């Protein structure tokens, strides 16, 4: 993907498969999902509920709630959710 966020440190964590909107991706197990999504080229995560503007992770520390997306059917903060093998991620928020 063009102009993705790039990994600059070789991770010593095991890579696992997750599913993002039907696409198979690999990510280090235990990494915050928001980080894995950035590295996989998913910068936009959802739309704002009122004006439907595109949004992505902003604070990466659990404050802004911009990364609140569906994981295994529940809305979670992607920056606070560690990657697990087989996770099913949907890039949409409350709407």
């Amino acid at each position: 993907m063009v102009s993705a966020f790039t990994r600059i440190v070789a991770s010593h964590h095991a890579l696992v498969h997750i599913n993002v909107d039907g696409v198979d991706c690999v990510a280090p197990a235990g990494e915050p999902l928001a980080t894995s999504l950035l590295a996989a080229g998913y910068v936009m995560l959802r739309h704002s509920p009122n004006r439907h503007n595109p949004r992505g992770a902003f604070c990466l520390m659990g404050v802004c709630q911009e990364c609140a997306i569906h994981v295994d059917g529940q809305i979670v903060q992607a920056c606070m959710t560690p990657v697990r093998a087989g996770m099913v991620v949907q890039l949409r928020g409350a709407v």
Partner: protein
Amino acid sequence: MVSPHCHFDVLVLGGGPAGMVSAITASQNGLRVGLIDEQSEAGGQIWRAPWASSPQGYESPEARDGNKMRDRLALSSVTCLFGRRIWSVTDRYRVDLLGADGVETFQAPHLIVALGAHERVIPFPGWTLPGVMGLAAATIMLKAHGLAPPKDWVLAGVGPLLAAVAAGYARKGHPPKAIIDLSGPSDWFAALPSLASRPGLFKQGVGWVLSIVSSRIPIYFRHAIRRAEGQDRISACLIGPVDADGKSIDGPEVGIACDAMMVGNGLVPGGEVPRLLGADQVYRHELGGWIPECDPFGRTSLEHLYAIGDGAGIRGGAVACIAGKLAGLAAAHDAGRIDAGAFAHQSAQALAEHRKLSAFSDAMAHMIRLRPAQVASIEADAVICRCEDVTRQDLVAAARAGARDVNQLKHFTRCGMGPCQGRMCGDVAAEILAQEHRLDRQAVGYWTARPPLRPISLQSMLGRVDYADIPIPKPAPL
């Protein structure tokens, strides 16, 4: 419903420098301590534990200090309760948590709150676009996860974090395309003398400057982002000059194509817990905003409630460590574990160190202070409240329609009512309201804090609830 675990003398909320040191100090002085943090490891943001690489792999001084303190914590008798979100704190002092195993409740007679700060970003049109992120987020990507923004990224904002992030990424071969610095060289020089007391930091600062200069990153001093553009992601930004107060002024604007932007304008103390408990608050512009009123040991107006670290006023990591020591000693003293003589003796050195560091922490806090003139320059169509998409013009309209304090503003516009609970917009929204009415910040107030402190699902909050567990209060006497 589970009854609270009561086997601690003191609970410490927040595992950053202030929380770690206070927990260790209190435990060394005979208190049984529970240390609670949302992350899976202690360190907070400044000492955030490296995740991607092995802990030894990262070379910054903060990483070394953080590892040292994590080692001390591991050797202490502090019980670490990590990976748990605090969703409620109530009287004397009951703390409700949500972790991987569901809800848990702890209760202790003493509570030390060290929950840190969050970032202030002065809004501009387009700051909600994906790819625009906070400076603190950039440091997390750099320090903890080894992730670099795409090649064409810009760095904007104010303060030492700007230099730290620029230098950090430059050294990894990913320098920003441009640095847009709200302050000018004279502001940086003005902060220099205060560095004299901190030779280690001075060296680090010189290292940052060398990295930035040798990477030939263009720096736009006294400039700010005017707007960001893009469809589903930022693709360009427009920058323009500002005066010494941060106010937008006439002058050539420059467009920069970019795929990402990291931007931050300082820190706001995250004082929700003391506020929720009803501790007296005071607005201190030079310390970042609303903070609980505290004595030098972090004692708030409520008995056995202590507030320390950046959440009690922005002073940085070094001061936070000393504040942690002082609060840990005070808790031990107030709980009767050490006598007045030992307390005075042990705290004397920390108090002296605190005074020595204040020149530096004051200078840094001054650099990242809120600039009211910058807020006055925010465009009418800029979104202020990201959660509810409330713009500056919406806030101004509400102020003109009669909203006088921030809680009225919230009811008029829904600003601050979304899932971030006003953490992202509170400081700027209050400033806009105050300016609109020509009032001071004290007069427009702060959001009323309400549980849950973090959005959590009702299901997880209830846990294994049983109707028989619901307490039925005695009817009031007639």
